[in-house]
């Protein structure tokens, strides 16, 4: 019979057993990478962040108090890695502002048949909205768990989820209408978080 996450965490905390941690990593790496890939929009960078998050989780597993699911704690480390990386990226861009300004305004590539695909619609959301709907809608976490991952108040996360869904819907409705040749408003601008 396979061990639960809780049992594996206790085993790794007691023995620092790498194979036990490997099993935890195997179970949760896909969710973590999906979260970070959608959040950053860059698969390679997301995988690097996921790897760093897993290594930090192993090194810091002694500090995990088991007051939340292991998955929630791991996503929280991943989210922090993403935020740090985004800040570094922002500083780098600041330094190369003129060059980057041109690239910044290029919209993400369109999906097949010109439709605004999901990635393109997601790109219009702020980081907080993106993270909240990814955690709650795509990865099945509760609002409370998402709040723990994002280290944000529950009310803020609920607002992010509601606003993120609305903006995603708006963006996709607008594109569908545009695809049908009907006049439609522009998708709402990004930012917000």
């Amino acid at each position, binding site marked *: 019979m396979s061990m639960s996450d809780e049992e594996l965490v206790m085993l790794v905390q007691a023995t*620092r057993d790498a194979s036990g941690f*490997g099993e935890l990593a195997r179970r949760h790496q896909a969710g973590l990478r999906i979260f970070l890939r959608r959040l950053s929009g860059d698969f390679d960078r997301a995988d690097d962040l996921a*790897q760093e998050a897993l290594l930090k989780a192993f090194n810091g597993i002694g500090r995990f108090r088991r007051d939340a699911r292991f998955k929630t704690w791991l996503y929280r480390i991943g989210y922090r890695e993403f935020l740090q990386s985004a800040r570094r990226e922002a500083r780098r861009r600041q330094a190369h502002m003129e060059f980057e300004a041109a690239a910044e305004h290029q919209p993400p590539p369109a999906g097949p048949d010109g439709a605004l695909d999901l990635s393109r619609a997601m790109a219009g959301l702020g980081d907080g909205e993106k993270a909240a709907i*990814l955690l709650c*809608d795509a990865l099945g976490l509760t609002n409370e768990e998402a709040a723990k991952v994002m280290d944000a108040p529950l009310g803020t996360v609920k607002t992010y989820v509601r606003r993120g*869904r609305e903006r995603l819907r708006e963006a996709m*409705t607008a594109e*569908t209408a545009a695809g049908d040749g009907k006049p439609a408003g522009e998708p709402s601008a990004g930012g917000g978080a």
Partner: protein
Amino acid sequence: MTADRPISELKDAAARDMAALEGDGFAMRVLLTMNRRRQRRQIMIGSLGAIGSAVAGAQLTHLFGAVSTLPGAERLGAFADPEMIASCAVAGAVAIVAWAMPGRA
């Protein structure tokens, strides 16, 4: 378009991605990286610990040489011997290295 379409598309995309990423060996690569970093750490701590202990061991007997001249040192018996004190200090340093080696510190 139904109101829930974007959310259901997001869920479908996540389920597709999940299936694709499940068995691509990422966890194994992370474990290999983890082992490499652990080995590097062990080599580094081991080397520095060995060099430090050798240097300290050579110097400590001189440093603790003064202990046996202190008043009341004769009551400590063999423990006032500089070589004994130096051995204890090096043993303590080795114990700290052994404790830190698995990543506790």
